[in-house]
């Protein structure tokens, strides 16, 4: 036990001695938490909208005003020809072009029917779909108004049947994406820091040549590993704590469930990550290799965690792969406990998987660490 304490002491000293590292461990992640949590939204706003008005009547102007009044659209320019408009779209200046045909008003009054042409930049397919929905909504609104003001008695027919859908967003009524993103990004940052630090740790001693000195001492394998990993476990908790305080104070993220449960889960989660880091460290010769491999896994963990893009949309084989992603579990636990107030019963399946994962990772790490070359 005493030996372990000495190793832990040595590790802490080494970490805190390197003045360049401290801000990277503590300031950089938290700064990113504060700034980047604001970036992750699919809520489409400020759509770069332009129009070509070939009709120039009061009705066409009224329609454009409708778009102007909407908060979704940012009415930029009015082009005189389609050629000009497409060129602007190629340049990336506009994303939506509305073309109002000549005789728009006349046709509507005479034929009671007219059409508009809309061109949408669809490189981002999902955004284009939403933009199309917004445009349809505005035009439909405009339709209704026009129907009321132009309505004539002979038009009176049966009332159409109407299925009214009433949306209701639970746990997050205002659809504030930050309550979702802040805990998620915190998870990513804690994972990155602990994995990178533990992944580089032993291989660094290997590269500098001090590992040999450690190996000739009577320190036992398990003492060495516990001593190496404990400091990062503590750092992980410290980051989580500061991050949670930030999310409460700055973002006012609700914490519905029990904080104790989150910490309890984190204790096991960090073991998975640290075991993984150690495993990488044992299998590489240089810090560079260790970092590349750690990076490889972190990028996969981040992008397949279900935080930025939904897991249900992935093909089936990719969904199976996400079962091996510890970050996915942590994100899910944070979401369930913090936002929905789930208790131990609901998260038990995730919990068991995490504990199993931790056992496997650490067994591998201990097995692959050899005192003799």
């Amino acid at each position: 036990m005493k030996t372990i304490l000495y190793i832990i002491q040595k590790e802490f000293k080494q970490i805190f001695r390197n003045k360049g590292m401290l801000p990277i461990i503590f300031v950089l992640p938290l700064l990113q938490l504060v700034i980047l949590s604001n970036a992750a939204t699919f809520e489409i706003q400020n759509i770069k909208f332009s129009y070509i008005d070939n009709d120039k009547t009061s009705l066409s102007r009224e329609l454009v005003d409708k778009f102007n009044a909407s908060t979704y659209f940012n009415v930029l320019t009015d082009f005189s020809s389609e050629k000009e408009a497409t060129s602007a779209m190629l340049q990336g200046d506009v994303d939506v072009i509305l073309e109002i045909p000549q005789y728009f008003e006349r046709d509507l009054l005479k034929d009671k029917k007219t059409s508009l042409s809309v061109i949408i930049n669809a490189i981002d397919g999902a955004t284009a779909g939403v933009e199309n929905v917004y445009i349809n909504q505005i035009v439909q609104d405009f339709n209704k108004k026009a129907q009321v003001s132009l309505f004539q008695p002979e038009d009176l027919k049966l009332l159409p049947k109407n299925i009214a859908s009433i949306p209701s967003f639970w746990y997050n009524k205002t659809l504030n994406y930050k309550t979702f993103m802040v805990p998620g990004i915190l998870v990513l940052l804690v994972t990155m820091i602990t994995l990178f630090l533990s992944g580089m740790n032993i291989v660094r001693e290997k590269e500098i040549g001090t590992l040999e000195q450690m190996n000739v001492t009577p320190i036992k394998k398990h003492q060495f590993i516990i001593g190496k990993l404990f400091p990062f476990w503590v750092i992980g908790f410290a980051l989580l704590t500061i991050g949670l305080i930030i999310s409460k104070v700055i973002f006012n993220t609700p914490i519905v469930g029990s904080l104790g449960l989150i910490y309890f889960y984190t204790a096991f989660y960090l073991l998975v990550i640290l075991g993984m880091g150690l495993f990488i460290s044992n299998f590489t010769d240089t810090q560079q290799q260790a970092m590349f491999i750690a990076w490889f896994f972190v990028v996969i963990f981040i992008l397949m965690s279900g935080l930025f893009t939904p897991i249900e949309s992935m093909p089936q084989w990719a969904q199976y792969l996400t079962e091996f992603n510890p970050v996915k579990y942590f994100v899910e636990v944070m979401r369930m406990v913090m936002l929905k107030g789930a208790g131990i019963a609901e998260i038990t399946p995730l919990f068991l998987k995490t504990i199993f994962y931790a056992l496997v990772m650490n067994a591998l790490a201990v097995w692959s660490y050899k005192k003799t070359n």
Partner: protein
Amino acid sequence: MKRFIGFIRKEFYHIFRDTRSLFILFGMPIAQVMLFGFAITNEINNVDIAVFDKSKDATTQEIINKIASSKYFSNKQFITNEAEIESVFKKGKIKAVLVFEKDFSQKLIKESVADVQIITDATDPNTANTVNNYISSILQKYGQEINKDIKTPYKIIPESRMVYNPELKSVFMFVPGVMTVILMLVSAMMTSISITREKEMGTMEILLVSPIKPFQVIIGKVFPYIFLSIINAVVIILLSIFIFKMPIEGSLFLLGFESILFIINALSLGILISTMSSTQQTAMMISLMGLMLPVILLSGFIFPIASMPMPLQIISHIIPAKWFIIILKAIMLKGVGLSYIWKETLIILGMTIFYIILSVKKYKIRLE
């Protein structure tokens, strides 16, 4: 010049000697592009929903079938009371619950209006919003079907045309992004440790007493990596053409030129990090921690930049990846030439020159 060539040769030896790193370097990006190209999408598919049908009549059954048969949703269970909604959400699999009011059909016929409540699990607001939109549009379509015989007068019909990506494939959005993120991070990581490594190994002293100038050291360090990164870029472009069926509407030559420019940009950013940090550990933590999330989040790779708050939109200007993604999409999907993207090209070029000058300035010719 001969000295300089000798130095470059040394760098090449260093790199090719470490076959393990080389293997990682070429294997990883391929694996990632393949994985992400298929797996990352912000469309929704097969979302599990539950139904709370208080009416249980022909109309509700028809609507439920309509929704369950779409590729977006699969109806996983029927629930029978309010309290169950809470519990299915807490389990986490079900993302939305559809609640039909009592006597749905009768109300629709008699009062010509009936309510469906769409309750979504908004702990993930982005998905919740999309799910809600999709369900409402299915309901709307159904509404139009039952109203087929009634003609509403004064109708303006918007006819939308989706350009550059008529099938709304999300691959077109994500493949350029994945390519950018991988090139940026791999390149910056490679060079970020190049100078610190010499410092840590003690060989820096030898470099400093040699007659090679700082400028030459920096160029010499970047040079070999340009080749490695170009190979990576070519492989990624080939994958995107042949596996993901990305069109290359514009000139392949221009695409190559822009990619090389971007690679040099990322490599010089790595060198800059290298000159500023004292140990490999610091250098790698800066290039990994400092670059990873900002490049993923602020480049427009996943989240549209136009929707972000103003300060973040301004910060996104200094992310080179943002400009490269614009260029890639413009060449690959819009098929434009240099005359449309010269601004973005100049910005990346300017950033590169800035990084190199700053690296030369920061390069210390004395040991501490």
